[in-house]
């Protein structure tokens, strides 16, 4: 019995992993492409740092990246390490998995008879992303971001904003005005270097994805899903149950709408939306990938903040639609 279940878990693991790896590769290639076409990433630092405009701009960038959340992580990491304002980077990380053409099209394909969902999903994703960016923005970057990401990020931030001690290299004193205007053009990395970096990044992320997929597959095989769907009709419980399901199932945002379709008839509309909003932000498979960006405190805050926002949105939708 236990062997049968382990064999099933092994198959689930392979399914989750092989489905996600192509999207991870797309993300890594886009991140490498950005390093090649815009070395130094000066455009990243020009993104707005306004607490509201920043996350909104980041979220809007999602339209340029037709990948789901696994592919998103390397791109968001590249944005943050390149010195993009924290809000813009986080807005992209949290909203882009929903705010992209493929995900919107798949949501529409799965629920052509529920136009409200087509509007509520992107809108909800932006709300969650802005709230999370505001929340995480309260924490000092040094306590929020992983050490190696922070070190890379400091190098790309202007000294005036960071301080020499934090950056641990650079010139003392304000740079002369002339030097500011004639900033040295960043050097395009050699192709071999770029390839090495991308390969290393892909393999490291793949390892994290493996860990996440193992956990997701084990939880899926040993916790009967009917436990979660048993409370389908109760307004608040159904939202909580589907949020838990989104955490466990860990499928990509580009296909989760089709999965939601299979139980849409059994749950409240708020719970359905909660499933479609929480999964792209956080799930078991993503936790280890997000660990590449955040320290544990950031991960806990992200999970708690996203869960609270999604619960509130779900409740509101249930008040409106039930």
């Amino acid at each position, binding site marked *: 019995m236990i062997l*049968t*279940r382990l*064999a*099933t878990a*092994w*198959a*689930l693991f*392979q*399914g*989750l*992993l*092989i*489905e996600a*790896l*192509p999207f991870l*590769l797309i993300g890594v*290639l886009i991140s490498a492409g950005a390093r090649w076409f815009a070395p130094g990433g000066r455009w990243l630092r020009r993104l707005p740092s306004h607490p509201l405009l920043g996350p909104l701009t980041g979220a809007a960038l999602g339209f340029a990246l037709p990948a789901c959340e696994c592919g998103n992580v390397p791109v968001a990491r590249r944005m943050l390490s390149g010195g993009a304002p924290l809000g813009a980077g986080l807005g992209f990380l949290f909203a882009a998995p929903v705010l992209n053409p493929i995900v919107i099209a798949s949501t529409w394909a799965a629920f052509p*008879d529920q136009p409200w969902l087509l509007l509520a999903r992107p809108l909800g994703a932006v709300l969650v992303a802005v709230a999370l960016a505001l929340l995480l923005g309260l924490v000092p970057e040094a306590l929020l971001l992983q050490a190696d990401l922070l070190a890379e990020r400091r190098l790309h931030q202007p000294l005036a904003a960071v301080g020499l001690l934090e950056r641990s290299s650079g010139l003392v004193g304000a740079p002369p005005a002339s030097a500011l205007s004639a900033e040295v053009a960043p050097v395009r990395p050699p192709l*071999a270097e770029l*390839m*090495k970096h*991308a*390969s*290393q990044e*892909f*393999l*490291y992320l*793949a*390892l994290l994805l*493996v860990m996440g997929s193992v956990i*997701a*597959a084990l939880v*899926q*095989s040993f916790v*009967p*899903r*009917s436990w979660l*769907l048993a409370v389908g009709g109760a307004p608040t419980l159904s939202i909580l149950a589907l949020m838990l399901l989104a955490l466990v*199932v*860990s*499928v*990509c945002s580009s*296909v*989760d709408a*089709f*999965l939601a*379709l*299979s*139980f*849409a*008839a*059994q749950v409240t509309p708020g719970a359905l939306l909660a499933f479609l909003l929480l999964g792209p932000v956080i799930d078991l498979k993503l936790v280890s990938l997000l660990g590449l960006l955040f320290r544990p405190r950031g991960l806990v805050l992200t999970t708690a903040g996203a869960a609270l926002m999604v619960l509130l949105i779900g409740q509101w939708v249930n008040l409106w639609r039930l």
Partner: protein
Amino acid sequence: MTPPLLQRAALWRAASLGLWALVMLYSSVDGRLDLLLRAVFHPLVALAGLLLLLVALLQLRLAFGPGRQERGDRRQARTLLLTAAIALLVLLLPPAPSFADLAGQRPRDETAESELSFVLPPAQRSLTDWVRLLRSQPDPKLFAGDPVRISGFVLPMEGEPPQLARLLVRCCLADASPVGLPVHWPAGQAPFPADQWLAIDGVMGLGPAPGGGERLEVVPSRIRPIPRPARPLEP
């Protein structure tokens, strides 16, 4: 020519990437993907495999070509070794899931089929077609006596005889949800083990529903054990 000592990192990277490329490409040809993923994703996996192979070859060239020497660190070496080992494990241990075990854990697929564009003649309907049709036309008397030719796996049910079932998959095995048809198993027939694939010819008949009332069930005239089909998952 042996590569310089410090270029070994590039060699390991090439090997690790090559193994992952092999996982993707080999899965695309050995039928494994049919068991794990919905067909629309298969070309994506093959394409990713090809891209990875290309990157691995370029890394290999780097390992043997002239270039700056690399200082590898411990974490990097661990990552390379671990990913290579996992890729090898995935390659060597193909998936062998128990569909009945998986289906037993999942709630039934309840997709409401609002529009049936056309209805196949009874003998050509698959198990999934039948389930969807019965859901959209819940009056069981409409179909009693229709011929049935279906295949599926044996799914044990709690408190009733086993059903013949299929798994519906929207993305990958992780989101599989079962659909099943009740079968009126012939008296005296030794029960088939869970997961056994069967092809059943017969007719639709009326039988007692567990909650009272009547429901349609397959009354077999011929039951043949078959191997698992090459494409066991249905969209």
